[in-house]
């Protein structure tokens, strides 16, 4: 017995030394200390003492955002002094409602036991597909009491769900060193994601401003340029930097076996948001004029840039796969991974299947770069990604435990695990720039840059975003299958959108 005690004491001392010397990360220390029966208070004291030195703790990144009202981006080391107890809410059961369409739920499932070991909290995951998720989310947010203590929401729905006042302000937790792990590092989140899913000024209906209601996660994402390095090299071509170069490369590389390029040609969410919108904003287009408040929020879909962006896609048809007008997300990923496409712009999240050596024939032949842009324009695209927050109507007794889980699932460690195991786009700058990850996945810095420069699509501030997107996809798809020209398609969308905007009372 005494011997056991002695061994345990030595092991504890060893673990404390290791964490203080930076040889052990916070998570591993907590795991060992918990197994060795160290109390939460002692664990907290040790972690507080080494706060700022623990491996994996990134300093706030230059340019990263601090939410309104916060004194500093991350809780300071001194503020964190000693009060944080990882096991404070042990025994609590928390439920999360999250997407089952991406791999986030798989990553979280993998790590449920770790979460329980480190916090004592049992997390129950509900992960339906996007449609039922939205439905389920709204039912819970509008109920007297939400069945879930944590809800994961799509960035495009921030206005609809956060803007309606359904989520709990989170700044009080961020600022409280007793509730937030000392190495959680709030300043590490990409500013673009924080503005897209975290901040909202409810009174003035402004996305990206005001209070903090959500934390970026579990993943972010934008659009990057995927190209076949081997084909470009063989043809003596450089990856396209402009849209003219993209077109020229498509023509030069097109063969019977490999299409010179591809795009979303089907009536699919990404036809408008990825292929058209990226081209539109990088040739100088501006989607909306005016503002909803002054009731002159009008689309610019009959502008020369709008028509030209669609025409650019139509012009690529002869150099795209024969059936590209039926190609949605899966078809493009499959065809690219099978080596049948020379180049395309796409959600960076497809890096997972494209760089998977077991399923992709081009894993070692694919290069990733910024999306092309006209000279003088910044290469950028639509900002995707998710936010995670605590419903205002969640059980008040469970909210602190929910925050504990929320910080765990948005921690650098978990973010790194997701990127490493599933190539999910992280929401933390430090993970995009993690040297160990970059060694394995060289595309990461490009994806990080795309994420940082990405633009929140202007229509996402409207509740009719998905309906408007569908109208655009249908008309553009019709143009691609030759039933109308680009000008007519754009004029039709303009007309349909104006009707929606008038109904929504944002256009007089």
């Amino acid at each position, binding site marked *: 017995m005494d011997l056991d005690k002695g061994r345990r004491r030595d092991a504890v001392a060893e673990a404390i030394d290791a964490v203080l010397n930076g040889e052990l990360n916070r998570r591993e220390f907590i795991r060992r200390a918990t197994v060795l029966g160290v109390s939460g208070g002692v664990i907290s004291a040790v972690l507080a003492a080494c706060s700022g030195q623990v491996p994996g703790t990134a300093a706030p990144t230059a340019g990263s955002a601090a939410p309104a009202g916060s004194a500093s981006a991350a809780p300071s080391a001194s503020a964190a002094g000693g009060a944080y107890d990882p096991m404070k809410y042990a025994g609590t059961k928390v439920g999360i409602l999250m997407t089952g369409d991406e791999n986030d739920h798989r990553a979280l499932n993998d790590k449920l036991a770790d979460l329980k070991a480190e916090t004592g909290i049992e997390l129950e995951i509900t992960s339906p597909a996007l449609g039922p998720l*939205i439905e389920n989310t709204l039912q819970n947010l509008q109920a007297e009491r939400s069945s879930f203590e944590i809800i994961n929401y799509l960035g495009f729905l921030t206005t609809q769900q956060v803007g309606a006042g359904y989520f709990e302000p989170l700044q009080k937790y961020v600022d409280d060193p007793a509730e937030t792990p000392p190495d959680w590092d709030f300043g590490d989140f990409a500013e673009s994601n924080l503005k897209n899913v975290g901040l909202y000024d409810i009174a003035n209906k402004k996305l990206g401003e005001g209070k903090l209601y959500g934390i970026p996660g579990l993943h972010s994402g934008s659009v990057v340029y995927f190209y076949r390095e081997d084909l470009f090299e063989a043809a003596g071509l450089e990856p396209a930097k402009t849209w003219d170069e993209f077109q020229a490369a498509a023509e030069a590389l097109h063969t019977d076996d490999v299409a010179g390029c591809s795009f979303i040609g089907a*009536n699919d969410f990404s036809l408008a948001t990825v292929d058209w919108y990226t081209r539109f904003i990088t040739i100088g287009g501006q989607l909306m004029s005016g503002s909803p408040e002054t009731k002159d929020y009008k689309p610019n879909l009959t502008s020369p840039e709008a028509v030209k962006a669609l025409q650019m896609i139509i012009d690529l048809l002869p150099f795209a796969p024969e059936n590209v007008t039926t190609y949605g997300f899966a078809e493009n990923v499959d065809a690219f991974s099978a080596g049948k496409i020379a180049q395309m712009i796409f959600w960076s999240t497809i890096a997972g299947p494209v760089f998977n050596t077991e399923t992709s024939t081009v894993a070692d032949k694919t290069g990733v770069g910024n999306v092309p842009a006209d000279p003088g324009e910044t290469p950028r695209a639509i900002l995707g990604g998710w936010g995670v927050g605590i419903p205002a109507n969640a059980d008040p007794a469970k909210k602190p435990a929910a925050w504990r889980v929320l910080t765990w699932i948005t921690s650098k460690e978990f973010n790194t695990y997701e990127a490493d195991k599933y190539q999910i786009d992280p929401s933390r700058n430090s993970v995009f720039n993690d040297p160990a990850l970059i060694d394995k996945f060289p595309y990461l810095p490009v994806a990080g840059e795309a994420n940082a420069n990405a633009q929140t699509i202007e229509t996402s501030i409207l509740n009719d975003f998905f*309906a408007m997107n569908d109208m655009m996809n249908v008309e553009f798809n019709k143009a691609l299958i030759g039933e109308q020209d680009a000008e007519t398609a754009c004029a039709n969308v303009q007309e349909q959108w104006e009707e929606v905007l008038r109904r929504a009372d944002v256009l007089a």
Partner: protein
Amino acid sequence: MIAQADRTTLAEQQRRGRFRKWSLPSRDVLLLLGPAVLYLIAFSVFPLLYSLRISFTDQGAAQDAAQWIGLENYARLLSDPFFWNAATNTAAMVGAAVTIQVVLGTALAVFFNLNLRGSWLVRGILILPMLLTPIVVGVMWRALFNPDWGIINWALEEVGLDAPNWLGSTEWAIRTLILVDVWQWTPFVFLIVFARLQALSVEVFEAAQVDGAGAIAMIRRITLPLLWPAIAFAAIFRAIDAFRSFDLVYGLSYGGPARSTTTLSFLAFQNGFQFQNYGYAAATAYVMVIILMVATTVLLRYVRLRGADAA
């Protein structure tokens, strides 16, 4: 004569029943019927009334309290080109699919009634498609029709035929949808008609043969009139089902391309669950309910008359 007398008695009973003094059901009746009535109220009547109420509001995603807007959703529907497009697609699908299914299903039933050797095995295989859920059928056929690696295009190319753009052109997508619906539900019509055929009295056919009726005449003058109630029942059942068709569209074409396969059910789904315009979606669903009620009432009346005449 007997049939006429029976009908008079029935009418008399109905007339008397109408004027009978209404009294409270007994305790036993209440006890026996109560649970079923409560169940119906909770799970049928209440949802119907609730969605009817929603159809008169602008209930959307971000509102706790929806505004009462009266008939605005219904008025908007009538001027919505997407609604009329969906109504046209639905009518085309119901009309074409059910007609083909009835003709094919009846022909198959008559053919299998010949009891050729091994027909029991083919019959079993024939009804397999209707055992699959429509969503699976949709996804399965989407894969089969895949222009890049689908087996159908491959087979057509192997025999030197140009494969159409099954799901990629507005012209072909609706035909493809009808084709798959026919593939799945012809066995249903076959099964109903075949069952009726098996139950027909042999003596009638023997008498016709004795009177010198040929095969065609027997089918036209005896078989089809006797089968009519079963054919009509199958057709009405299929029409109602095809009118509500959603899962097949969802799995096969997702309403596209360019809304060419968007049916009324799919339109209601999109408005409700993709765009969160619950009020508008409820109005769409109610218009469908009204169309179905009127159509089935008229059709059932017609079938009953024809059935009585045939008897």
